[in-house]
């Protein structure tokens, strides 16, 4: 009994801790949790179907800008965010139509191209997005940081719980594992593997879009640079450090990889800071090839 109580108490204390943080650090945790949804969307796609996407920031950007542009035109932010998620899903579906037929590096290049395309559109459609000048003053203010933190905590916990349920306990979980493990056997059992990939693309894009919409609502200021291919790589890195197929690891990794570089600012000079950061990531992958999620699995056993 006490073996169960202790970890739960630790998690509750840890989850409550950011509420006591100053504005700077709580801000960091909130953005990390928002990013963790984008990381999660990569995890979902790669972990469940083995498909790689290097263009995830594109979907995040679509969600963010849809909310930003519509909210500035007077749409209620909730509705604008909903449209953002829908538009991201639509784009995910359309990208999935050709991309789900691609394999391995062809797919990686294809999705990378999509990310760049979205970035260029955001940069150059000045009439709509104001381009590099940035979208300023998105009218979603009035919520304090503590509340934002609790909202994000709830969203992440709900997402993790839903996925853990599907993965561990539901019939859908074993079907998806069969698809991932052996497409030929899955097809022979009546699964339309193309449809599964297409749905995975669509849902993953929707979650990335949600991440973007939440980001826009929270930060209330957008520039295209927040959604370039570097961001896509950052999400991918967080997903890998967290452990592909481990959503919880992804959340932990995105919080750590967002906060550590900031904490390292104490080291002062910028280049040294990034060097330490990069070396840390390398060491994690060296000693934990299955990421943080793999470590958690091992500890549990």
């Amino acid at each position, binding site marked *: 009994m006490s073996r169960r109580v202790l970890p739960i108490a630790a998690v509750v204390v840890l989850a409550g801790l950011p509420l006591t943080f100053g504005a700077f650090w709580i801000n960091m945790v909130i953005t990390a949790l928002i990013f963790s949804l984008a990381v999660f969307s990569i995890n979902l796609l790669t972990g469940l179907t083995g498909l790689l996407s290097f263009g995830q920031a594109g979907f995040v950007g679509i969600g963010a800008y849809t909310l930003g542009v519509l909210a500035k035109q007077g749409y209620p932010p909730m509705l604008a965010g909903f449209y953002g998620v829908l538009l991201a899903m639509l784009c995910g579906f359309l990208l999935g139509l050709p991309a789900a037929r691609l394999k391995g590096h062809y797919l990686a290049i294809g999705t990378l191209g999509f990310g760049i395309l979205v970035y260029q559109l955001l940069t150059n459609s000045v009439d709509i997005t104001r381009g590099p000048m940035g979208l300023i003053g998105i009218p979603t203010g009035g919520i304090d940081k503590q509340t934002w933190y609790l909202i994000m905590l709830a969203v992440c916990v709900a997402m993790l719980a839903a996925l853990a349920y599907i993965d561990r306990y539901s*019939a859908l979980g*074993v*079907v998806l594992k069969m698809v991932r493990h052996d497409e*030929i056997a899955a097809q022979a*059992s*009546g*699964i339309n593997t193309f*449809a599964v990939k297409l749905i995975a693309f669509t849902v993953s894009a929707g979650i990335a879009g949600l991440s973007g919409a939440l980001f826009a609502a929270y930060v209330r200021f957008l520039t295209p640079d927040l959604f370039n291919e570097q961001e896509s790589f950052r999400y991918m890195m967080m997903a890998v450090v967290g452990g592909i197929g481990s959503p919880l690891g992804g959340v932990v990794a995105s919080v750590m990889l967002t906060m550590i570089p900031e904490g390292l600012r104490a080291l002062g000079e910028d280049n040294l800071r990034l060097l330490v950061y990069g070396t840390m990531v390398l060491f994690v992958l060296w000693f934990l090839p299955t990421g943080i999620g793999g470590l958690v699995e091992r500890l549990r056993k």
Partner: protein
Amino acid sequence: MSVLELTAVSKRFGGLQALSDISLSVSPGEVLGLIGPNGAGKSTLVSCITGVLRIDGGAIRFGDRDIQRMPQHRRARGGIARTFQKVRLADQLTVYENVAAGLASHWFARASGWASVFQPLSAGGIAQSVNRTLERVGLTDVSGAVVKSLPFGRRHFVEIARAIVSEPKLLLLDEPATGLTEDERERLAALVQGIAAAGCAQLLIEHDLELVGRLCHRVTVINQGHHIFTGTPAMAQSEPEVIRAYLGMNQLIGGGSDDARR
């Protein structure tokens, strides 16, 4: 009324005529043996029936429908199940989970099934079908075991369980006796007879001719893509063309290249 009916099926790979003019049919409850030397086209034929390959000529009817244009997963949903020569299971999942996956994968055919895939694996409907099937194939004792931990022979039975849990109309068994112990072979024989008794049509590809002779109501012999004989196993043994084809095959088996070829 036959479950499966192939009429003059042919398949080419570039310049190679892999199948020419193959006709066969299987009725409910019947076990049809499909035999022939290596390279005869047995696996190609299975691929054409399951939809991995599209045929170049002829017709494939399943029940009352033409299925030669139907994609693989829709044929499977329609009731064509198969096992593989080389077992294809999710090794790190349990026996129960593998069989449950075979059941749940069929639910996507109807919109109403989309909601059911979210129910827990231990839900009554799933547990009932899976446990009944595991009992049929004699795997109840290892239901919770990870497939990887099972001896090789028993994995064949997991695959059969995954195939029959959805109650197919036609079961294609691709060399199910390979690597089985004597005990397991007998259990397989009883299982095939049980499946037939339940009304499922079966196509059995097998090199173990003793087993074929015992289990099959009829056998179809093909050689180099051509149909050379269909009849009872007893008749096959005295058919000169079958003997000629099999002399070649025995030499191949004797030469030990049987497995090396795959």
